[in-house]
């Protein structure tokens, strides 16, 4: 009996134990780190919005990678958008072929994560998988502003975060450009003269092909002139244009001025207006010719520049008819006639102590000395940003007996190859016309220790570099010019650049530079190793760029800046 009891007890106990374990509810163990789905699953989860798109994706065969790891941005047309598109191409969704589906998906997809914060006025930073850029803008209708993609669709909901990228839901299907830049120009009768010029020069074919072999010619931007713009300049037909420019009679010759004129209107890259205004100059297809660009209020201007103190009025690109995407580039409309300026090399007598930031300080400019901190001057940069290395703008009054710098001012550079002083200074020059120049660095000699003209003491040789091109001779701010005749000095690479006869007012020839583009260039002063720790006070006054075939030591400069031709 006892054993039966104990057996029963044992059975019950076992049962109890088994039941307890069996009845235990399964604990839901979270095995994934997130429940955020990937792009494709997101679309499938929202069939009310994207069921049509899902069908297209399925047909294209891209469903797999849209659901795999990666970083993508998908512009997702809603069901209504797809329906609109199907009506337009007059097909049902089942009639869409696999290739069509592939192209649709590829054009709506980019291989990076891009939020609406990156939407600017122009193209998105990278191409779609289809191979064309998408452009963005903002559209306001009925007081409501929304993002516009490719001027074709409005963003309904932006920045939907999924596991492998962002989805921006859009209200129309995006359609890639189907025409080349050349075709766009030829389709618009307002460009007929310009188009004929393109044809005659042979550049029409360049603009009509997608150049996949040369990546630098894959995208081309054309600033086309309307017939009206040409007529405003007195050119009413192609023949008039040809008569004005073609100097060899054969426009196909790259040396012919008509060819040059047309090539000057082409930029070898995809440059939407936003890109054009973001940089100050663009190299054109015509080698070494530069288009300057600027933004005046809302107007985009080409070649609106100050040259030798004269303001040249620029040509406006019309916003409403520009930024037209093509298969191989962008088309803009220029509202006036422009051509590369034939400029002869002109001497630039550059007063380095005259820059916009100091001009804004009337109490300082040519009136008092001042110290500029690093970063406060746009066109002059230097190595170190600590206070002792700040740039000193030095003023010396008209009655100064030993400091005869031109325009009463100069810059004091603190230079040395080693130690606490700046290793280099970099300046952006005024516009220099392309050509060959002799470069003269003009300074007031000073020695931190020792006497000027005597051996020993401070020694501070500095190398001059223009656009990374090293000048043949260094300039030594501790050396003064020899006391010889002008001719003898020029032969030795010196000149007297002021009217004063003191030897410490020195112009030093540093070499000949070949300026290849009419533009602003970078000039760098860098201490040579022989300078050691250098010295604190190097008085840079002017830098002269004088065409090789022009007079080198005249004019000289008076204290107030007047040029003296004797």
């Amino acid at each position: 009996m006892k054993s039966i009891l104990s057996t029963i007890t044992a059975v019950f106990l076992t049962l109890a134990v088994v039941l307890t374990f069996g009845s235990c509810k399964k604990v839901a163990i979270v095995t994934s780190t997130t429940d955020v789905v990937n792009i494709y699953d997101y679309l499938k989860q929202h069939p009310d919005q994207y069921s049509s798109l899902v069908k297209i994706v399925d047909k294209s065969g891209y469903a797999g990678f849209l659901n795999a790891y990666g970083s993508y941005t998908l512009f997702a047309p809603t069901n209504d958008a797809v329906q609109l598109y199907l009506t337009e191409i007059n097909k049902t969704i089942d009639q869409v072929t696999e290739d069509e589906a592939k192209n649709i998906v590829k054009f709506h997809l980019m291989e990076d994560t891009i939020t609406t914060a990156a939407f600017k006025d122009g193209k998105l930073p990278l191409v779609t998988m289809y191979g064309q850029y998408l452009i963005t803008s903002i559209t306001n209708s009925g007081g409501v502003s929304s993002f516009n993609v490719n001027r074709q669709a409005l963003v309904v909901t932006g920045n939907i975060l999924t596991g492998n990228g962002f989805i921006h839901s859009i209200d129309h299907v995006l359609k890639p450009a189907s025409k080349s830049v050349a075709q766009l120009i030829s389709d618009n009768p307002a460009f007929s003269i310009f188009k004929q010029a393109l044809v005659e020069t042979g550049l029409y074919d360049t603009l009509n092909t997608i150049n996949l072999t040369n990546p630098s010619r894959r995208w081309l931007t054309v600033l086309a002139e309307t017939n009206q713009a040409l007529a405003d300049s007195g050119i009413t037909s192609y023949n008039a244009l040809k008569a004005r420019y073609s100097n060899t009679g054969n426009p196909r010759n790259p040396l012919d001025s008509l060819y040059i004129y047309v090539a000057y209107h082409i930029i070898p890259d995809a440059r939407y207006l936003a890109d054009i205004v973001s940089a100050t100059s663009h190299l054109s297809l015509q080698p070494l010719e530069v288009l300057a660009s600027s933004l005046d209020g809302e107007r985009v201007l080409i070649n609106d520049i100050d040259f030798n103190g004269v303001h040249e009025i620029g040509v406006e690109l019309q916003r409403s008819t520009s930024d037209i995407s093509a298969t191989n580039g962008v088309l803009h409309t220029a509202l006036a006639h422009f051509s590369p300026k034939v400029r002869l090399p002109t001497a630039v007598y550059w007063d380095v102590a005259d820059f916009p930031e100091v001009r804004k300080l009337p109490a300082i400019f040519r009136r008092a000395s001042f110290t500029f901190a690093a970063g406060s001057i746009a066109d002059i940069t230097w190595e170190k940003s600590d206070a002792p290395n700040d740039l000193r703008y030095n003023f010396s009054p008209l009655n100064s007996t030993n400091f005869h710098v031109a325009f009463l001012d100069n810059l004091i550079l603190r230079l040395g190859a080693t130690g606490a002083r700046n290793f280099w200074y970099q300046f952006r020059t005024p516009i220099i016309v392309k050509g060959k120049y002799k470069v003269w660095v003009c300074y007031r000699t000073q020695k931190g220790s020792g006497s000027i003209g005597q051996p020993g003491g401070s020694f501070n040789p500095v190398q001059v570099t223009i656009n990374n091109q090293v000048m043949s001779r260094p300039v030594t701010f501790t050396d003064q010019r020899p006391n010889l005749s002008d001719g003898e000095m020029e032969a030795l690479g010196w000149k007297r650049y002021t009217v004063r006869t003191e030897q410490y007012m020195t112009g030093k020839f540093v070499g000949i530079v070949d300026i290849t583009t009419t533009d602003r260039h970078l000039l760098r002063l860098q201490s040579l190793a022989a300078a050691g720790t250098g010295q604190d006070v190097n008085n840079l006054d002017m830098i002269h760029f004088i065409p090789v075939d022009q007079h080198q030591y005249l004019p000289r400069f008076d204290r107030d800046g007047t040029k003296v031709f004797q």
Partner: protein
Amino acid sequence: MLRKTFITLSFGLVIVSLFSCKKWLDLQPQDGITGAEFWKTKEQVQGAVVGIYASLLGSPTNSRPLAEHLFLWGELRADMVSATTSTTNEEIDVINVNILPTNSIANWRTIYQTINYCNTVIDFAPGVLAQDATFTQAALNQYLSEAKALRGLMYFYLVRTFGEVPLKLQATSSDQQLIQIPKSNADTVLNQIEKDLNEAEANAVFTFGNQASDKGRITRYTINAIQADVYLWREKYNECVTACNKVINANKFGLIDGTSSGAWFNILYVNGNSNEGIFELQFDRQKINSFYTMLTTSRRRFQASPIVMDEIYTVDFIDPDKKDIRGDGASVRATDNTIWKYIGITSTTSRAQEESYAHWIIYRYADILLMKAEALNQLGSGQEALDLVYAVRNRARALDATDLNPPASDKSAVADFILQERAREFAFEGKRWFDLLRNARRNDYQQLDLLLSMVATTVPPDRQQSAITKFRDKNSHYLPVYFYEIQTDPALVQNPFYR
């Protein structure tokens, strides 16, 4: 021996435990005061009111301090501040009209904290009358007026910044009171602000008897100043003039003399609490503001935009001694575009970090004069308005180049002139954006162009067209509701522009 020691010890233990165990069921927190213990004496009411003011100087939870919020909200979207290499991405996004709901500058938490402190005083202070016999009805009314005025001021900033905000008028003092409320429309909020201010005005004091309290706490004149601003925003010009006149006719305020620009700068901005000040946030050595790191040194996050000297103050190139005293050396250091107002101790020397306690001036007398001028001009009294503008200009020796010389009969020209004068007078005082928006939205956005042409100059060229078109949408003039608030309060609806 051992046994005796044991007995003594046990006995001692028993006695000790008897005494020490008394409080073992006491659940009062050790590091704070509970509501049941508080709201007993008038000193506690005073403490709570002073606490509201303290919250204006810096948030206790280390979120962005109020003064910095007011600077960012009032200046970033306008044209007088520009970014540097150290500006944060969020700040650049605001400048570029590229704000997303995740941008923490749109987090209104700091302001609602202060509002909750106000609500707490308004809810609980009346109960103290029954608890503390020495607490008088008059004293209670005065505290309530301070709390209501501050609540009104905070909501006024919110409604101008967000357009529509949830109107929370009861204190959140326990977990049971966490309620989710929807946004109220701008008119409802503004009506409540007016109601608060009117109730506060009747009981506010004219003076606290000392200069620091008169400038740092709410007096009746402060309330009149806020009222004037609210009426101006609501285009109630007669009421605005009346409110301004209450301050002007008190004959207690004046413009600080500008004969010596150094003395003027020192009295008005460096020391603060001047005869011109009406309400200023009282930073001091114990509680410094956050502007030092924001505006000085090479790591500064903001600098003055180039147009501040080029177009707003302008420079006399012929005679450099002729200058607007508010420009170089006061608002801005022209040589490197440093925002100087909160940094300078003289026109050339800057404060040390521990001296960075320039007051944040919310209202001052010049503001009253120019608000009155703006209202008078809208009422058709152009000449009276111009007289006030020239009073402010002459004090500051404004340059001829900035004198638009508008005919008194030309309402819109005078309005433009006043707007420009306000830019000069209140540079970097957190008013520029609200001034622009107020003028732009007048008469159903008649002058939207003000904002469009402004934004064309402030954003980078490659975003210009986008920014202009965004600003054509009125909803874009208001910040989004911060994403965290939307997540935690499903009753909140996002500003449609940011959806």
